[in-house]
């Protein structure tokens, strides 16, 4: 019963609280200050956007630079003629291969002496 009374008293307290704390009127500075805050945040956003654009631009330029470094040396490399086997044979003379034991020694071949 006492709990029930407290419940009712608490309800009454909450009801009176709204009257005790009425809706306040905004000061004359409310809107100017609000717009000041909006503008301040807008300028921060613009600043961050500019920084982001600079960063993205710099990253793109770096990518382009690295790509050029990758492409340019391959253009200056001498062009190879002949098949893969010819190139391989030229790079590894038969005597080297014999010395390494890859190709068996042929006494009739003057190149493998």
């Amino acid at each position: 019963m006492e709990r029930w009374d407290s419940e009712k008293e608490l309800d009454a307290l909450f009801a009176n609280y709204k009257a005790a704390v009425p809706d306040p009127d905004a000061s004359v500075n409310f809107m100017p200050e609000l717009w000041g805050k909006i503008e301040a945040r807008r300028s921060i956003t613009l600043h961050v956007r500019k920084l982001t654009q600079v960063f993205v631009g710099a990253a793109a330029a770096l990518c382009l630079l690295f790509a050029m470094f990758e492409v340019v040396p391959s253009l200056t490399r001498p062009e190879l003629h002949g098949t893969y086997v010819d190139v391989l044979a030229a790079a590894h003379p038969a005597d080297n291969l014999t010395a390494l034991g890859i190709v068996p020694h042929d006494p009739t071949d003057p190149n493998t002496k």
Partner: protein
Amino acid sequence: MLVEFEQIQKAQAGDDAAFNQVVGAYRKRILGTIARLIGRPEDVEDVGQEVFLRLYYSLDQLRTPEVFEPWLYRLTVNASYDYLRKQRRRNESRMSDLSEQQVMMADAAAGGKVSSEDQRQKQVKELVDSLLGSVSEQDRILLTLKEVEGLSLKELEKIYSVNENALKVRLFRARQRVLNAFEATKGGAKPGGRKEKKYGAMG
């Protein structure tokens, strides 16, 4: 709705005059809610400006007019909660921190200017503020919206995006804690002195 949806659409499109009208229509109500949620009149305008600032930068996310008011309330709840959380960190009670209203009351009381009705309202405010201090900031806000602002469970459901049963349970527990604090106050103990376990995040 206190404004036509067209006004909101214009504000969404970047019409500053329309945004001013939206703020003008809801300002008093939102400031009143904030005043009762945070309990410090001197900071009400700051929190109110934060609400409308968040509104300005999130208006483009609004799709349907029906959700505008619950959505504005959600912004209000979030800004008030952020404020209360910051306040808890400070948690100092010095004479210089007394609210303007308290100082005015004290001055007026000293000059004998306060009417008995003002005194009674001051007592109600202090008592309810101290009782709500016995629950977490989130429960304080939820309880104030339901018991003081008179929002329905359906409206709270839209604001919190939580189902009705979860809200009922949470409200019941919060109310029981406040009720315990109230009974302790009637028994002569300080409401803040008997803190029970507080609840964490919603949902």
